[in-house]
C-alpha cells in the first residue's frame, strides 16, 4: 500500500488447511485443521463426525470421479511479477491522481493479489480442483477545500492475473477517484425524502444485489425468512427487470470455474421480465429440495462452512438511451457511484450509500451532493424501475454474509427508479 507517497505496508501471507463437513439428517458437523497429515485429517474428520450422535460406524466405499482440474485463466501470474514493478504502478497512480488538481491533498493506493488453490471431494463422488487468481487495485483520494474534505474512490479488480492492470486502467481509476473528490468539494447537502433516482451504469448493480439478490438465496428461502419465499412464477418486478446471477463471466471479480463445493459456475436467470424464475442454491439446500445446486455454494476459506452466495449478479440492459433517461427526468437524483449497502432479507428493507451523486433539475445533471444513504424496500423498488438504458457495465465488490466475505461482481445499465427515499438533510 502506498500512502502519503510512502510505501507503508508490504505484506505476504500463506494459509493452508482442510475443512471437513459431515451431514447427518438435518445436522452438519464441521471441523477444520491446518494439519494436512493423514492423522491431522482423520482427527478433523472424527471431530466433524462427532455430531452423528446416534451414528453406527461402518465403512462406505466411495467411487470418486476422475479429478476435474480447472486451470487459471491468468496470463501473468502475480507471484511472478517483481515487487518493484508493483510499487512503480502504485507510484504512477499516485502521480496521476495528484496531477488532477492542487486540492488533492491525500492519495492512498493499494494493490493486492491472491492465488487460491483448492481441491474438493465429497461422498457423492465429486472430485475437482480449481486455481483462482485474483488481482485488485484501488485508489482513494482526499480533496481539501474551504468547506472541508471530500473523498473519491475507484476499484479495479478481476479474477485475472497482473494483465488486468494496464496503464490505461490505472490512469482511468486515478483520474476518476481524484475528480470525484474534487467535484464533491462544491457539494451541497442532499435532499431529504422520496425522489426519482437515475442510477448510472455499473455500481448501481449493488442495489439489486442487496435489494433482491440476498432474498433469492435458498438458505433464506427454505427457512421462510425471505420476502421472496413461495413466489416463483409470480410477477415480483417491473417487466423491464431481468436479473441474472452468473459465475461464468470470465475475468469478472465474481467469476468461478467451480464453486467451493466443486459444482461448475453457471448462469442462472433469477427474474425474467419481472417474473421470479428461480432462487440460488448450494449443495445442501438443493439436496433438501431434490434438485441440483446452481453453483452458488461458496466459502471464504477452508475454515468456513459453504453457504449460498452470489457470484456476478446483474440486470440485463434495455434499449433506452442513458442521456435520454436523464433528459426525461424533471427533478431527481443522479447517482454516479454507489457505496456499500445492507439488507434485511426478511423484510426486504435495504440501505446503501451514494458516494457520488448529483441533482437532476429540468432534465439536466446539476449540483454535486454530499454523501448520504438511500433507503428502500426491495420488492417495492423492483416495481419502480421505469427505464433501462443500453450502456451495461460491471463493478467489483465484496459481499459479507454471516461473517464471511467473498468477491462478487454487480452490474447494470443506466436506469431510473420512480421513487427512492434519499436520506439527506436539505428539504
Amino acid at each position, binding site marked *: 500500500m502506498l*500512502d502519503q507517497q*510512502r*510505501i*507503508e*505496508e*508490504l*505484506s*505476504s*501471507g*500463506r*494459509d493452508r488447511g482442510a475443512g471437513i463437513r459431515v451431514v447427518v439428517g*438435518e*445436522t*452438519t*458437523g*464441521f*471441523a477444520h*485443521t*491446518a494439519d494436512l497429515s493423514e492423522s491431522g485429517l482423520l482427527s478433523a474428520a472424527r471431530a*466433524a463426525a462427532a*455430531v452423528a450422535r446416534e451414528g453406527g460406524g461402518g465403512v462406505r466405499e466411495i467411487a470418486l470421479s476422475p479429478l476435474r482440474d480447472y486451470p487459471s485463466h491468468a496470463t501473468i501470474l502475480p507471484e511472478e511479477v517483481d*515487487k*518493484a514493478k508493483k*510499487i512503480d504502478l502504485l507510484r504512477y497512480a499516485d502521480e496521476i491522481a495528484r496531477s488532477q488538481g492542487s486540492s488533492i*491533498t*491525500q492519495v492512498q493506493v493499494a494493490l493486492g493479489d491472491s492465488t487460491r488453490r483448492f481441491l474438493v471431494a465429497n461422498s457423492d463422488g465429486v472430485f475437482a480442483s480449481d486455481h483462482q487468481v485474483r488481482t485488485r487495485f484501488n485508489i482513494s483520494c*482526499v480533496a481539501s477545500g474551504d468547506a*472541508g*474534505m*471530500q*473523498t473519491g474512490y475507484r476499484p479495479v479488480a478481476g479474477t485475472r492475473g497482473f494483465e488486468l492492470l494496464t496503464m490505461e486502467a490505472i490512469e482511468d481509476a486515478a483520474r476518476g477517484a481524484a475528480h470525484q473528490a474534487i467535484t464533491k468539494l462544491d457539494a451541497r447537502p442532499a435532499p*431529504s*425524502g*422520496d425522489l426519482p433516482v437515475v442510477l448510472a451504469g455499473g455500481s448501481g448493480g449493488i442495489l439489486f444485489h442487496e435489494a433482491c439478490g440476498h432474498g433469492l438465496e435458498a438458505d433464506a428461502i427454505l427457512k*421462510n*425468512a425471505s420476502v421472496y419465499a413461495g413466489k416463483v412464477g409470480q410477477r415480483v418486478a417491473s417487466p423491464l427487470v431481468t436479473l441474472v446471477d452468473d459465475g461464468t463471466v470470465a475475468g469478472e471479480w465474481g467469476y468461478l470455474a467451480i464453486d467451493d463445493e466443486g459444482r461448475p459456475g453457471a448462469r442462472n436467470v433469477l427474474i425474467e421480465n419481472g417474473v421470479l424464475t428461480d432462487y440460488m442454491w448450494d449443495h445442501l439446500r438443493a439436496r433438501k429440495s431434490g434438485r441440483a445446486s446452481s453453483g452458488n455454494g461458496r466459502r471464504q476459506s477452508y*475454515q468456513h462452512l459453504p453457504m449460498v452466495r452470489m457470484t456476478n449478479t446483474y440486470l440485463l440492459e434495455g434499449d433506452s438511451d442513458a442521456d435520454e433517461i436523464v433528459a426525461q427526468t424533471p427533478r431527481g437524483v443522479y447517482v454516479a457511484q454507489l*457505496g*456499500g*449497502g*445492507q439488507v*434485511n432479507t*426478511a*423484510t426486504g*428493507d*435495504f*440501505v*446503501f*450509500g451514494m*458516494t457520488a451523486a448529483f441533482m437532476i433539475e429540468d432534465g439536466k445533471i446539476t449540483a454535486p451532493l454530499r*454523501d*448520504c*444513504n438511500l*433507503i*428502500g424496500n426491495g420488492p417495492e423498488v423492483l416495481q419502480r424501475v421505469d427505464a433501462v438504458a443500453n450502456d451495461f457495465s460491471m463493478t467489483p465488490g465484496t459481499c459479507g454474509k454471516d461473517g464471511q466475505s467473498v468477491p462478487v461482481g454487480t452490474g447494470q445499465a443506466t436506469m431510473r427508479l420512480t421513487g427512492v*427515499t*434519499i*436520506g*439527506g*438533510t436539505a428539504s
Partner: protein
Amino acid sequence: MSELMERAERILDAAKGDEQIEVYLSRGTDTEIQAYQGDVENLSTASSSGIGVRVLRDGAAGAQVGTAWAGSLDEEAIVEALRQARDNARFATEDEFVAFAQPDGVEGAKLELSDASVLSTPLDEKIAMALELERMVRGGDPRIRQVDAANYSDYVAEAAVVSTKGIRASYERSGAFVSVEAIATDGTSDQTGWGLSAGRAPHELDLSEAANDAISRATRMLGAVKPASMKGTAVFDPRSTATLLAIIGGALSGEAVVYGRSFFANRIGEDVASPLFTLLDDPTDPRHFAASVFDGEGLACRRNVLIRRGRLEAFVYDTVSARRAGTVSTGSAVRGGIAGSPSAGCRALQLEPGSMDQAEIFRRVGNGIFVESLTGVHSGVNPISGDFSVGITGLMIRDGQLAEPVREITVASTLQRMLLDVRYVGSDVEWLPGSAAGQSLAIDGIAVSGS
C-alpha cells in the same frame, strides 16, 4: 512464562545483523452451534493458530518494515514468513517515524479475562443452550413465526507479542455468546428482532434476556409505517449508541488525525461536544468485553480520557502514529489478527453515564424518534467529512412515551453537529461485544427522511 511466549522468543533468535524482529503468535479454540427447529443445524469446532511477523531494518533516511503471516505454527511456515517479511522490508519507503514499540515501564492491569469453564463445559450443555434459546423464542409469543437461527458460540484464545526491542507480552481471553434472530408476523408483514447475551463463560449467559430481547424487538415493530419527514430529537438505544461511539472512536485514532483523515484534527482543547459528553477508551475496565492487558504492540493498555465534558483532550496512538505526532504511544495499538499490522485505534470505549434512565429521557424529550437499530453505517458515515446518514428502524416518541413503530427511514446530520447537540446521556449502560459499550443517548436537530 507461557509455552507460546517461549516459542515466540525462539523465533527472535533468527534476527540477522542489526535487523529487528517482532513476532505475534496466536492460538485459539472455538465452538459454534446453530439450532434450528429443535435440532442442531450446524456444529463446528476447531483450533487454529498463526503467526504475524514484522522485520525492521534501518536505512539512511529511516526504517523500513516488511510484514508476513502464516496460518500455522509449523517450523517451515515460520521460516517462510520470516524470509518474506525480510524481503518485503527492502521495498518499504525509508521513514524516520517508523519504529517498533519500546517497553515504556507501564505495568499491565491485573485482569482475569479467561475462564477455564469454556473448555470444561461439556459440548452437550452448550448444545442444550442453543436448543433452549430457540425453544424460548418460538414459544415466547404467538406472533413469532420463525427463528432464523439460534446460536451459541465460544472461544478461548491466547496470544503473545515479543520483539528484539524487549517487548514481552502475552495474554489469554475467553468469550461465550448466545444470539438469536426472531421473525414476527401480523399476517400482512414481517419484522425481525435480534437478541444476544455475552459473557466470558457459558455460565454467565442469560438465555431469557436474549430471547426476550429478540421477541420484543420483533413484535413491537409490527405494523411499522414510514413516517413523514421531520426534524427533531432522536433517542438512540444502547446498541445504536455503541455503534455511534465506535464511529466517533475511529475519528479519534491518532493515525487518522496525523494523516488529516479525521474531523477532529487540530481541534485539541476545543469544545467539540455537549458538556454532558465524557468519552473514554479504557481497556483496563474488566466490565468491557474488549478489555485487554496489552495492546497489539505488547504495551500495557491504559485508561485514556478522549473527550472530557465536551472538550477534546486526547487521541489514541500506537508507536508510529505517536512518533509522527511528536508524542508517545497511549498503548492503543490494535491489530486485526495475524495478517494485520498494528494501527492506532480505540478498543474499549465508554461514555460516562448520566443520571436518567431511558423512561425518564423519553419523558423529558416528549416528542421525537427512538432509534432501535442502525443500518448502512459503513456506507453512510464519512469519518473524514463527518457526514452522517443512516437507515433506522425504531418507534416514535409521543407525549413522553413510545408510540407507533416506524421503518424505511433515514436519520441524517453531521457527526460534529450531533456531538454538540447531545441533550441527555442515560444511566443505562449496556456492556456489549465490540469496541464500545452504550447507553441511551438523546440528540437534537436530527433530520428524519420519510415520505
